[in-house]
């Protein structure tokens, strides 16, 4: 037992160096026009499994639009988005979510009247099968694992008999899939709330959470859909330096859980500190791609951020 623990503590470091990794998402020559406005102009880049990719650019560069194309909110005018080999463009958002892409929103979009826990449970629900008929009649029975059976806790008396009857019934007839899924959703959601650090506010209505907690809750909700790729849209907006530091840690932890991260961010320092690779957009066109170091030295990127022309630099 002690051996396994020690190997586990040594092993889980996932190499952050870019190596030969599987291609996860491929954005191929995507063009998006709104009438005469070209929001994205032949943007192409790839995301590999297990990396943290930064997508940066000045205001209005098309970062969020790029996100919206990837999550099915907008359909590209031409070009394609492929996820793990399958076409994304043209599918509906719920389908894309099931394929394994999830996101947070730049302007927080939680379900304000639902509790934090329920918000996350909506995310976990997307992997469950029970629907109206299943929840209503609960006829689909599953043989429960021993730890899922109702426990007999009472020492004696009527209550004990009742608990024993329930346990035996569950052993004979099984438990409904609805109940098992409901329990799994709750457990996983609590675990995710703990992961992002707001487990103490599980029963609070989302509207009443502080700004920072709402941002964290959005991340937990996005993680609940079990995404292969999670897209964070300016998660640090409005954060102070200490909170940003915590967020950096959280983003690395998300990657270490096995998710690939795409990060849109304004704050150059945050991007430089956490990403493996950076793609820079300006006016809907990709102007640079590479490691944070390379990109931050690229004269065109400096120009885009500081407003100087390339010639002047």
């Amino acid at each position, binding site marked *: 037992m002690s051996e396994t623990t020690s190997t586990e503590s040594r092993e889980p470091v996932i190499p952050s160096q870019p190596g030969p990794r599987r291609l996860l998402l491929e954005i191929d020559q995507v063009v998006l026009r709104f009438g005469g406005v070209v929001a994205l102009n032949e943007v192409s880049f790839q995301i590999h499994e297990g990396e943290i990719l930064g997508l940066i650019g000045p205001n209005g560069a098309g970062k969020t639009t790029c996100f919206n194309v990837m999550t099915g909110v907008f359909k590209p005018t031409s070009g394609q988005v492929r996820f793990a080999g399958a076409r994304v463009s043209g599918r509906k958002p719920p389908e894309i979510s099931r394929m394994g892409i999830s996101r947070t929103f730049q302007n927080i979009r939680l379900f304000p009247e639902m509790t934090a826990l329920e918000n996350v449970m909506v995310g976990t629900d997307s*992997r469950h099968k029970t629907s109206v008929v299943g929840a209503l009649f609960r006829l689909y029975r599953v043989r429960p694992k021993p730890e899922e059976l109702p426990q007999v806790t009472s020492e004696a008396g009527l209550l004990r008999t009742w608990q024993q009857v329930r346990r035996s019934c569950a052993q004979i007839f099984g438990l409904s899939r609805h109940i098992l899924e*409901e329990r799994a959703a709750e457990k996983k959601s*609590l675990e995710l709330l703990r992961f992002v650090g707001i487990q103490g506010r599980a029963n609070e209505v989302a509207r009443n959470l502080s700004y920072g907690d709402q941002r964290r809750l959005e991340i937990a909700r996005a993680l609940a859909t079990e995404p292969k790729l999670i897209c964070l849209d300016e998660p640090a907006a409005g954060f102070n330096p200490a909170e940003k530091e915590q967020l950096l840690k959280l983003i690395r932890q998300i990657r270490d859980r096995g998710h690939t991260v795409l990060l849109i961010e304004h704050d150059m320092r945050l991007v430089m500190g956490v990403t493996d690779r950076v793609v820079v957009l300006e006016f809907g066109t990709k102007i640079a791609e590479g490691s944070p170091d390379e990109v931050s030295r690229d004269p065109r990127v400096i120009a885009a951020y500081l407003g100087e022309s390339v010639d002047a630099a």
Partner: protein
Amino acid sequence: MMNKLRATEARRRAALSGIADRWAALPAWQRLIGVTAFIAILYYLPLLGVPGLTWLRTDSIDGGNSWAGVLFTCAIYVLVAIGLNVVVGLAGLLDLGYIGFFAIGAYSVALFGSTNSPVVKWMQRTFELEPTWAVAWAICIPLAIALSLTSGVILGWPTLRLRGDYLAIVTLGFGEIIRIVARNLTGVTNGAAGISAIPGPEGAPSADNQIFGLQDLKPWYWLAITVVLLMVFAVRRLENSRVGRSWLAIREDEDAAAVMGVNGFKFKLWAFAIGAALGGLSGFLFASRNAFIDPSQFNATLSILFVAMVVVGGSGNMVGVAFGAVLLAYLPERFRFVSDYRWVAFGFAMVVVMVLRPQGLIPSRRRARELQDRAKEAKVSV
């Protein structure tokens, strides 16, 4: 004046939520006893004879209607409110044509169960059946549910792509269409003349009926309240499941819900279909008890009344909407002297409620799950 009212209101709200909190904090067995006692009282109500409470009965005033009859009306309105609450309160779809589903439920039992209906007469001729033959009442139940559910799907399929006001307009039109079709399709529905001899549990209405007769209405109320309780149980199951969460998520932010994997169209259609089925069931009970229906009983005013029950009671909360339904069905019966001015009084009350308590009399309080203990159990696997 306004501020004072608001302050009183805030105090009352605090007291109310206190009651709800204390109720939720009770052990399960005590809540079970509470619920059982409440149900027992519901079944006892038509016999109400406790000295000091008899003034509640509607037949305690001159020219008052039968007490059990009023209770029956309350019960079917509660059923309507519960169904409409699924659509309006949970899924957030404003449906102003709910009377349409109520009418479809009522007409299904009338058209197939009554020997006077042109449909039954046509069946008798075509299949050479006896002139007393009609579809049995018990078979009309699933028939009414299936027909209203199907009509909900048929209406919902094309229209649920619309949002907000547009959906309200389309559904308002639907309610009117059903009424006008029922009036003009004389060959099928007897038109404005209506259909009589609609059966009850004991078959066509006649003086020989022992239990479900025309005089003693208590059994009708007991039947209706049983149906209501069953449906409350069923809708609660849905509310506390993935389905209920999806409805709320759609109501709160449909686009965000879609990105989180909620198939909005599917769940909205389900909400519409379930709402329609409950409305149809309610209409079915109404028609069986009334034994006669005609199209004028299903006008748009009633649709507005149904929405009012939900909004006044507290949209999204089943206890609230049931309370709203009872209030709007009972008060005009008990206080007959205002019944001439009932629409004025009613409109005024609506305005007052909307100004002082826009969330309804007993608003939906997002149930805080009792998780304090279980939160500690959940293991961290980071």
